């Protein structure tokens, strides 16, 4: 009897755990997008004038653009005038430290497993917590400052380090880049800013947790990471949202600048609300992420575990400009129920002896559609550039789809490009083998999928690898049978 109860409890718990809503008084601008709204966002954030100008230029350009339609996604029309572009918890003054932050907000992040207060902080990980359009606070700022590292919210950076922001903003992803990046450039709210000075190894993991809370709002964060020559940094982002029947838009831009001999490792555990089992609700996730290996011998590595969102459209990319620079992309994308994902990477080889490696693992179940889309381009002067791409798809059940769209362009005869792709199903024999050893079906599926993703999980920082694995197990629930 208690066992049944336990099962029920487990079932309830195991649903989308981050689906709660924080009841907090919020300050929202009216729905709709126009110059006034943009000016208001800029004013709220006390931004310098040049930044507002940049936003408005982006907005004017965006008005001339149309949304992309080339992805393998069924995308309902988005009414951009119905979205609220700014929402923030109400507060008298900007809190000067985490002690002044509304306890309800701290509680929210506690509940999400990202404690911010001193005594419970994750050891060795500095966190910037973003709630709707604003950063709630950033931990370990003092410790990082001692090392010369700047880690703060984007708004704070625009106020405190305007020159650095002005120099690099839009230098990797120009505002004209694409429809959603352009929209983001006009209306972006908070995100994180990281600056690691020359020859400095960032003393701890940096992490941002993005939380959408308010109804009918979009989240448009902007992240900028700059690694000066010889610098090293590892950064991780996580994200969740409440369960709602309406779709919500998330359109982020991430720019990475890697100077000579620097290393940036960027990991994502994306767990936006995926919608319910009938495909109702969920986040539309349209993200532009790009890293510029500007200096020789620089290295950028993207790792992503994508389990959430109703629709995912993102292609974290590397521009391998410096000679001998290296780009990596490790991805696990799991889609279930009615989720759709069109994700992959672009490796643009410009410099000599540049290398890139792409490992993509797509898992589809339910009625979902999961596509890998990847571009490898070897420019004319990219002598001896090399790429290796491995792209594996795993199908669970008979009603889902897996698709692979590799694009290869080579203008240099010395370039070497390898592409391997496999599609497989979880075999009945594998399932029976596990079950005959005592595991139930769900456990068996989780185990097999975990094995399938191993190459990617081992790229994640330890703490997050455990989390990613647990997340995958939850997302797989009900995938079989």
């Amino acid at each position, binding site marked *: 009897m208690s066992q049944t109860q336990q099962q029920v409890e487990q079932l309830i718990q195991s649903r989308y755990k981050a689906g709660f809503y924080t009841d907090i008084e919020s300050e929202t601008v009216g729905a709709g997008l126009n110059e006034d709204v943009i000016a208001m966002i800029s004013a709220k954030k006390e931004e310098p004038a040049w930044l507002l100008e940049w936003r408005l230029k982006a907005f004017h350009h965006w008005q001339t653009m149309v949304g992309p339609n080339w992805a393998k996604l069924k995308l309902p029309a988005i009414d951009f005038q119905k979205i609220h572009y700014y929402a923030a918890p109400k507060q008298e003054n900007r809190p000067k430290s985490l002690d002044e932050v509304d306890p309800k907000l701290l509680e929210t992040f506690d509940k999400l497993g990202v404690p911010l207060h001193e005594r419970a902080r994750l050891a060795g990980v500095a966190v910037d917590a973003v709630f709707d359009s604003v950063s709630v606070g950033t931990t370990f700022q003092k410790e990082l400052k001692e090392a010369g590292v700047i880690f703060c919210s984007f708004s704070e950076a625009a106020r405190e380090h305007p020159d650095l922001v002005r120099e690099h903003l839009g230098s990797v992803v120009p505002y004209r880049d694409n429809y959603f990046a352009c929209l983001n450039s006009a209306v972006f709210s908070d995100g994180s800013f990281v600056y690691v000075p020359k020859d400095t190894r960032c003393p701890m993991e940096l992490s941002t947790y993005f939380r959408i809370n308010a109804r009918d709002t979009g989240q448009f964060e902007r992240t900028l990471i700059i690694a000066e020559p010889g610098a090293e940094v590892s950064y991780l982002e996580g994200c969740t949202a409440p369960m709602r029947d309406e779709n919500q838009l998330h359109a982020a831009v991430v720019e990475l600048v890697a100077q000579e001999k620097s290393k940036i490792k960027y990991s994502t555990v994306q767990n936006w609300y995926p919608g319910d089992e009938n495909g109702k609700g969920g986040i539309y996730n349209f993200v532009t992420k790009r890293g510029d290996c500007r200096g020789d011998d620089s290295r950028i590595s993207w790792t992503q575990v994508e389990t959430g969102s109703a629709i995912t459209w993102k292609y974290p990319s590397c521009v391998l400009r410096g000679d001998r620079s290296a780009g990596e992309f490790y991805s696990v994308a799991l889609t279930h129920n009615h989720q759709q994902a069109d994700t992959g990477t672009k490796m643009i080889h410009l410099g000599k002896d540049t290398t890139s490696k792409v490992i993509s693992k797509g898992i589809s179940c339910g009625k979902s559609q999961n596509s890998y889309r990847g571009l490898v381009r070897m420019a004319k002067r990219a002598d001896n550039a090399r790429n290796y791409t491995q792209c594996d798809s795993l199908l669970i059940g008979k009603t889902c789809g897996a698709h692979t769209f590799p694009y290869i362009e080579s203008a240099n005869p010395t370039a070497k490009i390898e592409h391997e792709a496999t599609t497989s199903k979880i*075999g*009945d*024999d*594998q399932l*029976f*083998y*596990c*079950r*005959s*050893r*005592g*595991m*139930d*079906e769900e*456990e068996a599926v989780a*185990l*097999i999928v*975990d*094995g*399938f*993703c*191993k*190459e990617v999980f081992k790229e994640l920082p330890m703490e997050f690898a455990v989390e990613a694995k647990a997340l995958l197990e939850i997302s797989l629930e009900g995938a079989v049978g």
Partner: protein
Amino acid sequence: MLKINNLHVQVGDKDILKGLNLEVGPGEVHAIMGPNGSGKSTLGYSLAGRDGYEVTDGSVLFDGQNLLELEAEERAAAGLFLAFQYPVEIPGVNNAYFLRAALNAQRKARGEDEVDSIDFLRAVREQLKALQMDDSLLKRAVNEGFSGGEKKRNEMVQMAVLQPKLAILDETDSGLDIDALKLVAEGVNRLRNDERSFVVITHYQRLLEHLVPDQVHVLSNGRIVESGGRELAERLEQEGYGFLSPEEDAA
């Protein structure tokens, strides 16, 4: 321990087992021999609860329980183990992790505590040593890139760690050279006691030289057609299955 009465099993729309009777007492070793296609592997899969092996008639009692009511994983937790003829590869999942997940799943189902990782590793290492397998096996993915012999020995490692009440060995001897065969036989002999029973499905008599069975049965066309002591196995070795009536041999 195991009591099979009039077992009929269908695979697809084909009748494979057609009224099989078998009784195995605690601590006994029974060998099942028979020509290809006689239903030997079907017997193993049916007892282990594989989907697609439909029991259309008959009953199976295992340790006093109605075995046929249980899911495959429940059968495992109840103490039934099948050593596969063709062990399955699971890429990316290391052997130690797999085995521990299996053991803990069984223990959990029985209401026991999860096994301590140090005790677990000690137990596994001991078994690896006995089966002359390298420790590095623990870190390799389940059966991936294993030789045929390694796969079979790995099944024996699993069996030894899971400590079943009844183990069914489905042609564990096939594809093994004589040294590996002896190791496998020793592995089984070490686990023999007054309680634990074995059903050894085999094509050849040679395993039975090292693993002395209490009874030998001949399976043909979905039924046990002959039972006897060890001498029956020797007779089969010399005369083949020819002494069975031709229509039964035809399966």
